[in-house]
């Protein structure tokens, strides 16, 4: 690594300079939103660039929570995540463990199965899923939103657990099984504690998926009382498109939990040494 960087012949200040520019490109959109969310709501919008509003007000956040009914929608979103997250972890880690403890042929076939399933993401096939949910009578039920959790949300998660379990010494499992521990017992008290980082990463990615899901609630939830946050947000925007600072405050509030989860879990999938994809 170091060799390569030396090959690029760049000193540290130069490297930081460009890195800051890169960070600016990626970070600035969020800062723009943040800045506007602190602006007083009135009839005028800025016609010259203002990096920080004058005066800075925090009232938009309270106003957005109230006008947008965001607490209600937030609780609905939270309900979906609260159910979907553990189900995902259970299904994906079960599948990963079972794969890791299977014969070569089964392992190979299962990896292929996961890869094929990965080629068709949920968001691509919402239309037939909408019809299936309708036929199952689950339209307008929060269960419709949790369905992907039944398959571990993404075949990738099963694969991640599979890779993690495969790295563990086999004799450990075999010894436990020989002692007469059932599969569930082995999974819960032996296997799962060994793959903490993977579980954390999958949990974070699962949170991001369900918290951010826009298509399913849009199509499958009918009652405003059951709307989740993204729907509430788009309603607020259609209604209050003249009150941009308010809309930005709502968008920031909606994004905050995702950002928080990412920051808390980032070391599991961004840290230089122990990359999720290698684990």
């Amino acid at each position, binding site marked *: 690594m170091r060799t390569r960087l030396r090959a690029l012949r760049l000193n540290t200040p130069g490297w930081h300079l460009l890195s800051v520019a890169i960070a600016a490109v990626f970070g600035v959109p969020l800062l723009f*939103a943040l800045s506007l969310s602190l602006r007083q709501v009135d009839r005028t919008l800025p016609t010259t660039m203002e990096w920080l509003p004058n005066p800075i007000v925090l009232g938009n956040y309270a106003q957005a929570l109230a006008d947008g009914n965001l607490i209600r929608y937030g609780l609905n979103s939270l309900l979906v995540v609260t159910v979907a997250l553990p189900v995902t972890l259970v299904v994906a880690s079960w*599948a990963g463990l079972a794969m890791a*403890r299977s014969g070569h042929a089964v392992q190979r076939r299962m990896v292929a199965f996961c890869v094929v399933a990965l080629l068709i993401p949920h968001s691509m096939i919402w*239309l037939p899923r909408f019809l299936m949910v309708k036929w199952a009578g689950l339209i307008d039920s929060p269960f419709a939103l949790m369905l992907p959790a039944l398959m571990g949300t993404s075949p990738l998660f099963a694969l991640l657990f599979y890779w993690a379990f495969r790295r563990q010494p086999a004799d450990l499992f*075999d010894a436990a099984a020989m002692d007469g521990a059932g599969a569930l017992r082995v999974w819960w008290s032996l296997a799962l504690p060994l793959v903490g980082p993977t579980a954390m990463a999958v949990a974070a990615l699962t949170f991001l998926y369900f918290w951010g899901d826009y298509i399913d609630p849009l199509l499958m939830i009918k009652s405003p009382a059951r709307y989740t946050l993204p729907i509430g947000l788009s309603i607020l925007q259609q209604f209050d498109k003249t009150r941009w600072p308010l809309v930005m405050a709502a968008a920031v509030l909606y994004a905050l939990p995702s950002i928080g989860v990412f920051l808390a879990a980032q070391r599991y999938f*961004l840290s230089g040494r122990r990359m999720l994809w290698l684990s």
Partner: protein
Amino acid sequence: MSGPGLDRGGGYRFQVDYLPVGTFRQFRILLFPFVVATVLLVGLPAALALGLSFTDYDALAAPSWVGLSNYTHLLEDRIFNIVLGNSVYFLALSVPLRVLGAFALALWLGGERRGAGGYRAIVYLPTVIPDAATALMWLWIVNPLYGPINLILKSLGLPQPGWLADHDSARLVFVMMACLQIGEGFVVALSGLKGIPRSYYQAAQADGAGALALFRHVTLPLALPWIALVAVRDTIFALPWTFAVSSIMTGGDPFYTTLFLPLYARIQSVDYLKFGLGAAATTLMIILAAVALGLIGLAARRGWYADET
């Protein structure tokens, strides 16, 4: 986000071969929920989309078989051809840019310098922001009169595009947004590059290779499987990603320039109750992604061969 090609390409990584196999079949039952649910939630809907695309179905009465007429109708329809063009444009522009961006950034930020972790986190950050929030933020950012981008351009005395109001630049906004949400590809690129053994570089340097030659003969060929992997991932997710952002930001305006296949399928099916047409559009989207994947496969193979000769 990961595939079988990964084993083959980065084989050095998986030198630990399959571990001794557990002889205890009781683990097999743990596989059951995952397999059944995946078949029902992925396999069945995919088959259903294909099946429905040959029918006339309004979700009210039973579907009736119409053969290929949904497809011929779509391919003759002027608007659908615009939509198809938009989708190809978006794929062709966003996927290479995203892959390039992910790897360039991984090369730049992959080292263990002080502060690198922070930069990496910021690069990943836009990826975790939910689509609906991203869409609203960008709706403001590219507002042609009051948005910060145009206000900055104005203060610099530069011309200010109409962005979403303009036929030419509207699609570009979506490409720009897509290019800032490259966290997943970035992580794959980071780990892919990190996996290249240092000894390869040292050996090449000993042979007197310069920076460019190192990149050309060591980094690029060894990163190729990972590049292909990211390209595959991006190709699959690119079009479905447009659904939320284009619904919220433009609804396909101006003049269908930001109408992509997923939103088109929704308008036909849910708004006009033509589920057969929507299913045909969905199927065509899957075919389009498959064709793009084929092209990537071809390019990657050529790359491998070129490397070997």
